[in-house]
């Protein structure tokens, strides 16, 4: 069927709600890539084996990931009238016990992580699950969750990402309906501008302004692209966003396309994310069936469709001109800007193109749904909204953390992450991937926002936070990143191609204890030139891990260097 009105939407919504909260108990297994890898699929299969293909009394479903990766596999249980209960560290061996308990309207309390009596999906739906199970901690009391604010991840782990009805049931595509049928494109851009949303890919360019430039660009054909090339090692929030809530990305793109005046969209996604690709393909197919993509959406006369283009393992393709080259079937060697993507001649196949990161797109539906004022009230001045971070490395509670921008590193690493794993002392975090820097623990009162991180030599980047402890060798970390950047350099300009190679050779020499003070001087001269003269952002920022470790952990270099 095609959805053209609020009434159609309501009908689908009711069907979706019956899937999320059926009249019988529902067991939902968290099946994003990480959940599957730690055995989630085996748990799912075992439960299915026990309850059979079609069970009249129990519904078995797949959901995405709520982000508490350390505790996976996670299983949600919804018993009508009772709170939703999240079970953690579930094994196939637990399946029998879970099914038996659920059959009796109960849950295995000792496997329970927390209960959720009420959940606000923000975009117009609050799920009142019910009361009971008082012996299980409430969601808000779990230290990993209590300091988070889930806006982007509001549906992750609670709905089936392969069922568009469930997304619609929690208020999905309502923002698109509102935008397309009731708002002028300019008004949408105004809202996004007023919300203060900045690019979540790392550079923090105002999204609304980018859209305005793209809208005003000359050209009868234009593109919008979703950058899903998530290339920073140690970062995986985009993967989870696409695997757990793919329709949010599509809805954001649909609204953006309408605002900019574009009928063709593309998602450029790395080939290393096969599950995210599959879920996006499924989502696109379902959206087309409902007429949410394709011709004459909501009967407004506006047409828009989305295709998928896969990357092939090149970090540099996160750079906008390299990304476009890659989609066009060329090697990802950046070209000097201008022309920018939004300029005539500069975008995909020469047409003006608007490029936004996955998480930027994810922010759009909620901005339209709740309004810019609501959105701008979250976070800090000039840094509104929340940001999802992947908190990984040598931290106790590993997982995806969503907090308002401006939250301090202390809160993220210690309050939410519980500090070092195995009671080790945390020494530093690395933010922003290979373009970012290492921040020492003494600067953890720094608020995580674009400017504050820049001031201390790092960047926001896409949101990876890798924790290092007392055992981590910071010079080795610098070498790790330079090795990464050198092998991911496209090889076009000499400072990046040759400069990073020689930086790596010098770091190897230092780590082999064969370097002298003279080598440190050369290192410093060379990195300065790489920053100043490289063609694109990859080269210009690649020395950051060296520069920050030299600034904050100089003693570790000195200890390795001969006089």
């Amino acid at each position, binding site marked *: 069927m095609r959805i053209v009105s609020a009434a159609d939407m309501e009908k689908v919504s009711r069907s979706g709600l019956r899937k999320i909260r059926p009249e019988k108990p529902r067991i939902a297994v968290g099946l994003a*890539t990480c959940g599957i890898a730690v055995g989630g699929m085996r748990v799912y299969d075992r439960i299915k084996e026990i309850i059979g293909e079609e069970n009249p009394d129990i519904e078995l479903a797949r959901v995405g990931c709520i982000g508490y990766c350390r505790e996976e596999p996670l299983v949600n249980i919804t018993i009508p009238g009772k709170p939703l209960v999240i079970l953690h560290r579930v094994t196939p061996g637990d399946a029998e016990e879970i099914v038996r308990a659920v059959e009796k309207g109960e849950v295995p309390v000792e496997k329970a992580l927390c209960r959720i009596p009420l959940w606000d999906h923000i975009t117009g739906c609050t799920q009142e699950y019910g009361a009971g199970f008082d012996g299980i901690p409430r969601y808000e009391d779990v230290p990993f969750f209590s300091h988070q604010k889930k806006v982007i991840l509001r549906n992750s782990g609670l709905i089936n990402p392969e069922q568009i009805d469930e997304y619609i049931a929690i208020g999905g595509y309502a923002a698109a309906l509102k935008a397309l049928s009731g708002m002028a494109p300019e008004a949408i851009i105004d809202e996004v501008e007023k919300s203060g949303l900045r690019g979540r890919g790392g550079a923090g360019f105002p999204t609304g302004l980018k859209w305005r430039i793209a809208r005003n660009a000359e050209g009868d054909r234009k593109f919008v692209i979703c950058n899903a090339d998530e290339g920073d090692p140690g970062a*995986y929030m985009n993967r989870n966003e696409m695997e757990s809530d793919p329709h949010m990305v599509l809805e954001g793109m649909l609204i953006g396309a309408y605002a900019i005046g574009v009928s063709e969209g593309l998602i450029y996604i790395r080939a*290393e994310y096969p599950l995210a690709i599959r879920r996006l393909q499924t989502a696109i197919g379902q959206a087309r069936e409902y007429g949410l993509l394709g011709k004459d959406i909501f009967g407004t006369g506006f047409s828009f469709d989305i295709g998928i*283009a896969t990357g092939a393992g090149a970090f540099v393709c996160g750079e906008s001109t390299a990304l476009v080259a890659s989609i066009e079937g060329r090697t990802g060697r950046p070209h000097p800007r201008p022309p920018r993507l939004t300029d005539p001649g500069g975008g995909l196949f020469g047409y003006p193109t608007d490029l936004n990161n996955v998480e930027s797109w994810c922010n759009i539906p909620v901005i339209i749904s709740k309004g810019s004022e609501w959105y701008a009230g979250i976070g800090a001045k000039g840094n509104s909204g929340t940001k999802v971070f992947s908190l990984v490395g040598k931290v106790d509670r590993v997982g995806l953390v969503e907090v308002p921008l401006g939250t301090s590193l202390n809160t993220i690493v210690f309050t939410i992450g519980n500090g070092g794993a195995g009671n080790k002392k945390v020494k530093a975090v690395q933010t922003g991937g290979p373009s970012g820097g290492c921040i020492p623990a003494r600067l953890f009162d720094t608020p995580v926002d674009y400017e504050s991180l820049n001031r201390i030599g790092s960047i926001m980047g896409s949101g990876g936070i890798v924790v290092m402890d007392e055992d981590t060798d910071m010079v080795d970390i610098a070498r790790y990143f330079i090795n990464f950047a050198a092998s991911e350099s496209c090889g076009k300009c000499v400072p990046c191609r040759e400069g990073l190679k020689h930086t790596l050779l010098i770091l190897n020499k230092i780590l082999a204890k064969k370097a002298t003070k003279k080598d440190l001087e050369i290192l410093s001269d060379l990195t300065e030139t790489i920053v100043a003269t490289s063609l694109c952002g990859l080269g210009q920022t690649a020395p950051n891990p060296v520069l920050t470790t030299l600034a904050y952990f100089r003693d570790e270099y000195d200890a390795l260097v001969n006089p």
Partner: protein
Amino acid sequence: MDERTLDAIIARHDAPAGRLLGILGEIQNQEGYVSRETLEMLSEKVGVRISQLYGLATFYSYFTLRPVGDHVITICMGTACHVKGAVAILEALEGLLGIKSDVTDDGKLSITTIDRKFTVEIARCFGACSMAPVLRIDGNLYGYATPEDLPGILGEYGWKP
């Protein structure tokens, strides 16, 4: 790759955006590598110079130009995996399989055992950082890996000490 398979792949990628990398990606997935014969056939069929296709196949690390072993083991070298001991996993794997991995002249790391049972490669990041260190064998991910786990994991793929 036979001509019919290639034709089918080409037919699936009719949109100009993402076409060439999409086709090459499917060839890689199906063949396990991109052979010279297939690349030359593709060049003829899509009317793109072989120098351009070869440039793509050697630029992007997703593609391999040499045949791989029966099972491909990919070690994640993302930051989280690095700080949690990915290098030790790689070294232990080399010890068990009796190989020494080294970067080849094309800058890619890929080495196959003499009996052609296993190929060891590295990846820049799977995005499965929460369970670092991670390795992947034929599409199956193994998280929280330790050198001690390896014999058991490899055993699932027919490895014997």
